[in-house]
């Protein structure tokens, strides 16, 4: 500390500073903290869903594309259209769908032809 000063002014300065220390925020500070905590808790579920959604959607899209490509490759020679091939739609006519065989035997639907 500066040698020109005696100990008393130093103590006085320390005392002034100590007395000037802020002691509280504006009224109802604890209430504002509690309100923010409640707000933070309320945001937890939507944030978690958003977090998972952002990661799951690209994976799901990639899996769907892969499956469509596989289906198209598998049925490229037999399907009527590219869409039928990609979605792996069975070839079936209305008459075949409502035939007794297809109503009572599920395998008939797949083997039915126009």
């Amino acid at each position: 500390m500066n040698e020109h000063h005696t100990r008393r002014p130093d103590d006085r300065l320390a005392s002034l500073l100590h007395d000037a220390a802020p002691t509280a925020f504006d009224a109802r500070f604890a209430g504002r903290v509690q309100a923010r905590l409640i707000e933070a808790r309320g945001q937890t579920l939507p944030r978690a869903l958003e977090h998972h959604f952002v990661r799951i959607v690209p994976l799901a899209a990639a899996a769907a594309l892969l499956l469509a490509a596989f289906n198209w490759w598998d049925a490229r020679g037999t399907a009527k259209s590219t869409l039928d091939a990609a979605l792996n739609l069975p070839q079936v006519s209305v008459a075949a769908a409502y035939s007794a065989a297809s109503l009572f035997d599920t395998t008939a639907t797949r083997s039915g032809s126009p």
Partner: protein
Amino acid sequence: MSLSTSDAELIARARAGDDRAFGEIVERYEGAVAATAIGMLGDSDEADDVGQETFIRFHRAIGTYRGDSSLKTFLVHIAMNLSLNALRRRRRVFARFVSRDETEIDAPSPSLGPDGEVDASELRAFIRAAVGRLNEKHRAVVVLRMFQECSTRETAAILGVPEGTVLSRLSRALQELERHLAPYVKQGAEAPVPETAR
């Protein structure tokens, strides 16, 4: 809830989801956090936000708080880091939009009351403004050592600097404050004798 409830007990209850226990912690340490945030940032909404954020961060980390330091020191540490971050943000904004002259924190000189004494609340505001004029590093040391009465070791740990640095910054900061506050420092040192005693 009684004042005798220990910090450890309050923390254990807050960990278990007791909001009243956490509220008690907030009320118990509001003063320490306020002294840090307002001391560093001035009495502003920004300081209030830093105060709230301090307790929110503590609530998030309450499961990992091991009690290596006192709860007060832990909270003051968070508040100081958040205050320094806020000052950095403020500096970036000010550097872009505001000239340096406009950043000075000013308070009117305290006026004398009818009894010849300085108005206490004006004096406190004047002293806080003087602390606010210190540079960030010096201000942080004054806030921790003089407002919070942290030890030199605690101050060094909170600021992440050697103890010698704390002492030298404190010495320079106090010299600067003595220059700004000279009339009030001398007044208190020399003339506290009441008229009736003479």
